[in-house]
């Protein structure tokens, strides 16, 4: 399996699963505007998934389409980080999860616009513009909720405490990345982590929130080892294609 295929699936699955999670808010948003905002962002993620998995299928060269990859793999073949599959819980938890992810995605796409792989650079250039809006949205909510009432502050602080353990995995690198790094297809995750941390600190500071002191971190998603949530997500996501193979509407 090519390293580029694996890398594209990792990014594509992050968007696919996060997009699905956000779409679960459809009809359940705390206010109409946020219902629309979250589904808009979900749509951007599904769009980015389409670009990434379509290209992954082409790189793989076995004739798999973006739909085949999205709907017809098994749990252990999904490569998304654990963070994006965590449950929506309340609006504060969803916004915190989104912020921690957006703060990583934006500098990642900024790096990838300089990729030596022309198509990956094109996808990054396109997606970056959307991601800037996502980050602005989630960061503003983290600030508003963190620096809001006692109740909202406590809830988003708890969300941060619970989600923090999934953040190191955003910068996960392994054997797969060696060749891609050497060829200038992708770039250093240390640089990425620096930009991420800077953004996270700035926003959390304004939100009067505190980074948890606990060094415990979890990983596994990039290797296909997921939390219990992914199975339930896939059951819903794949239902139609599993029940009626090849159906279209």
């Amino acid at each position, binding site marked *: 399996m090519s390293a580029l295929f694996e890398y594209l699936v990792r990014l594509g699955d992050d968007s696919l699963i996060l997009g699905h999670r956000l779409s679960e808010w459809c009809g359940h948003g705390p206010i109409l505007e*946020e219902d629309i905002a979250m589904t808009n962002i979900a749509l951007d993620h599904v*769009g980015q998934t389409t670009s990434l998995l379509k290209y992954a299928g082409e790189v793989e060269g076995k004739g798999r389409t973006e739909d085949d990859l999205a709907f017809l793999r098994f749990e252990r073949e999904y490569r998304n980080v654990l963070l994006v599959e965590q449950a929506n819980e309340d609006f504060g938890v969803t916004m915190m999860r989104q912020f921690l992810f957006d703060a990583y995605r934006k500098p990642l796409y900024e790096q990838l616009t300089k990729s030596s792989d022309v198509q990956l650079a094109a996808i990054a250039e396109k997606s970056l*513009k959307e991601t800037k809006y996502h980050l*602005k949205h989630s960061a503003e909510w983290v600030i508003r909720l963190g620096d809001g009432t006692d109740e909202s502050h406590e809830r988003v602080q708890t969300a941060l405490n619970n989600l923090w353990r999934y953040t190191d995995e955003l910068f996960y690198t392994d054997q797969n990345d060696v060749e891609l790094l050497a060829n200038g297809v992708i770039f250093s995750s240390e640089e990425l982590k620096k930009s991420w941390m800077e953004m996270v600190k700035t926003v959390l500071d304004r939100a009067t929130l505190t980074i948890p002191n606990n060094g415990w971190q979890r990983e596994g998603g990039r290797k296909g080892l997921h939390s219990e949530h992914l199975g339930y997500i896939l059951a819903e996501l794949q239902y139609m294609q599993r029940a009626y193979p090849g159906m279209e509407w």
Partner: protein
Amino acid sequence: MVTKERIWELMEEVFDPEVPVLTIVDLGVLREISEVDGTWMITITPTYSGCPAMKRIEDDIIEKLAEHGIHDVKVENVLSPAWTTDWLSEPGRRKLKEYGIAPPVDEIDKSVLFADQPIVPCPKCDSKNTKMISQFGSTACKAHYQCQDCQEPFDYFKCLK
């Protein structure tokens, strides 16, 4: 004889399904028209990655050309250079405003997190006393605003750079 110019003309009759006053030429979604071995290649680019109108636009292009007897057509979707609101034509901006959607204004860099929102004049009364209700509106490319003077709620075609 079918010429490139003729096809551009016909493309002026293909409308964006979500903002039906704009053609794909106004919108800047149509990037290029070329002929390769008798096949007309029509290159388009999405406004947003997940824009659900792209498939429809593709079908509409093929249908429009078929109506005029042009059947050897291939529509290609490219991502780079990425679409920007700078490509929205002047007539397109005027048509948007007449339709009640505020056209994009030159906007602050979104990477500046805490900068002020851009001033978007009301498409009905031109007042600059408007406020953003939500960054995300009825479609991916729009934000939701309200005029504080005439009270009109309106869509803003948001800047994408």
